[in-house]
């Protein structure tokens, strides 16, 4: 089994790169305390006063912000927030989408109907504006994004999983399981779920990227928490401190690159996984 998985990764560039990026950031966030050079929130002073907008140096690897904070350390600690939000959201989507898809597809009838109507309603609410409004009455909080994703983005995963369950339901071995007296619960979890899990995983990996992008957007708009360092917060800080006109590229380009890497890793993994699940028979 392990050798099988290993072989899959070896032949499959996308999945490998994607997982590699994740591992990279996971390591960084675990060892952030060691890797970072300063306290990311600390306002630093130099001999001439506030250490603001300093260019990269050995002391401040990527320079400092307008408030005298070390950019590099912010970048490093930002990975923690990104992973926390990303993985929670992925879990939310995967779990909700799977459960909904399983129940809806397997039981059908009025349960299915109600769930599909709920899906339509969830899809009717514009996503980013919803997170903004959520931030307004729940307060600026990293978890707004996760809640919003959980509430609004489960239909995509849910629908696909549901249709997969519908196909599986008609298969012979399900019939025979029913006949042999397996409880519905058992059937769902022993027979159908294993076939569904790859899809859950797929949507989960895409959700990670989506969550990180959304968190960045929300922070950028000023609705994110101001005491937590995140890459989105860095971008907002840069923007409002006129980093653009100051052409302080070193400030706002690295956080963006980190975001891109994390999101693209999600895409790569889902692509790699897709190739494994649905191999295209080459002509």
């Amino acid at each position, binding site marked *: 089994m392990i050798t099988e998985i290993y072989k899959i990764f070896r032949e499959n560039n996308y999945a490998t790169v994607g997982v590699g990026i994740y591992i990279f950031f996971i390591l960084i966030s675990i060892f952030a305390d060691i890797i970072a050079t300063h306290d990311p929130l600390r306002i630093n002073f130099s001999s001439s006063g506030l250490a603001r907008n300093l260019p990269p140096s050995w002391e401040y690897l990527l320079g400092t912000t307008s408030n005298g904070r070390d950019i590099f350390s912010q970048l490093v600690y930002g990975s923690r927030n990104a992973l926390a939000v990303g993985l929670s959201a992925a879990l939310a989507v995967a779990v909700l989408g799977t459960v909904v898809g399983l129940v809806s597809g397997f039981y059908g009838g009025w349960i299915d109907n109600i769930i599909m109507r709920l899906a339509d309603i969830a899809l*009717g*609410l514009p996503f980013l*504006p919803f997170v903004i409004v959520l931030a*307004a*009455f729940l307060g600026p909080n990293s978890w707004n994004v996760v809640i919003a994703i959980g509430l609004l983005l489960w239909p995509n995963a849910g629908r696909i999983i549901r249709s997969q369950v519908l196909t599986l339901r008609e298969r012979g071995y399900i019939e025979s399981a029913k006949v042999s007296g397996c409880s519905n619960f058992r059937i769902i979890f022993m027979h159908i779920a294993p076939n569904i899990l790859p899809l859950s995983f797929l949507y989960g990996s895409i959700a990670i990227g989506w969550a990180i992008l959304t968190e*960045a957007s929300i922070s950028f*708009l000023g609705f994110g928490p101001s005491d937590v360092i995140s890459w989105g917060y860095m971008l907002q800080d840069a923007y409002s401190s006129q980093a653009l006109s100051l052409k302080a590229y070193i400030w706002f380009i690295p956080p963006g690159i980190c*975001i*891109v890497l994390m999101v693209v890793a999600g895409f790569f993994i889902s692509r790699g996984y897709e190739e494994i699940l649905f191999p295209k028979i080459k002509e």
Partner: protein
Amino acid sequence: MFDFWSIIRRFLYMIFVLWIVATIIFFMFRLMPGSPLTAFIGTTFTDEQHDLLVKRFGLDKSLFEQYSLFLVNTLKGDFGLSFTYNKPVIDMIIQALPNSIILTLFSLIIAYIFGVIAGAYLAWKRDTLVEGISIPIVLTTRSAPEFWLGMIALAFFSFQLDIFPSGGTSAAGVIYETTLSKLTSLHFYYHLILPSLVLALYLQGLPLLLMRSNMLEVMQEDFVTMSKMKGLSSWRIVIYHAARTALLPVATAFTLGVGFAFGGNVVIETVFSWPGLGRLLVFAVSSSDYPLAQGAFIFLTAILILMNFLADLMYLFLDPRVSYKTKN
């Protein structure tokens, strides 16, 4: 050829969803911390003035009365007065709406035209180096936060090279008389270019990947093989047969994309100080101007749901197989 009942049914369902969503919005905004007025009023008003304002905003009525009033007013288009500007919310929305529409449509059209052509091209170039390089690049454009791309564009093209303006729909002091004069003004387009190109860069990934995967699928279809057997030219097969079928989902995606982009444009509008609906919402929420926030949010939702409905219809019309099934 089409089936009226099926359209009516979908339309009614759309109304139903709109109603449910409006109700959700109603309760959402009521649940905002404190009375809607506290953030606005603060402690500097006397009790008398407080009561007057409460009456004026109808906050003394029962929840049910407020709800019915809300529904009626929403249908009339009366969203009340903005707390901060004391202007009718609807007027502010009407003013901002065209800007959002133009930005969205402009960017989407560019993105989709590029995406469709590039996607078909990449499908043609299956298993080549071109494909191997292009796909990761496209995925990267989809992974970058749009506002970040906007920031880079602004920093480089606007501040560094000074080619494009740094935001807004016009330079300070310039006012467009009417929407028509805005649309026909070169000055306007000068301001539109940067935000719409940045947005288009982000958006093109979807149509590109979609078109590519559709084309790959269609090229495997039997009728494509038959066309080859008939001796038709590759050109003809790709354009008249493969592309035609592959475009169906892309057309639907476009319609859905409009609804979606409206909400998502919030950030681009902020980066480029583009006075659209999204930016209005952000402003309203950050200044606790709840009538304005509610109005803007309702509008964004309504547009999204409308677009979903149109996309549904479009699929009905464009695919003869589907429209035939519903006829029977």
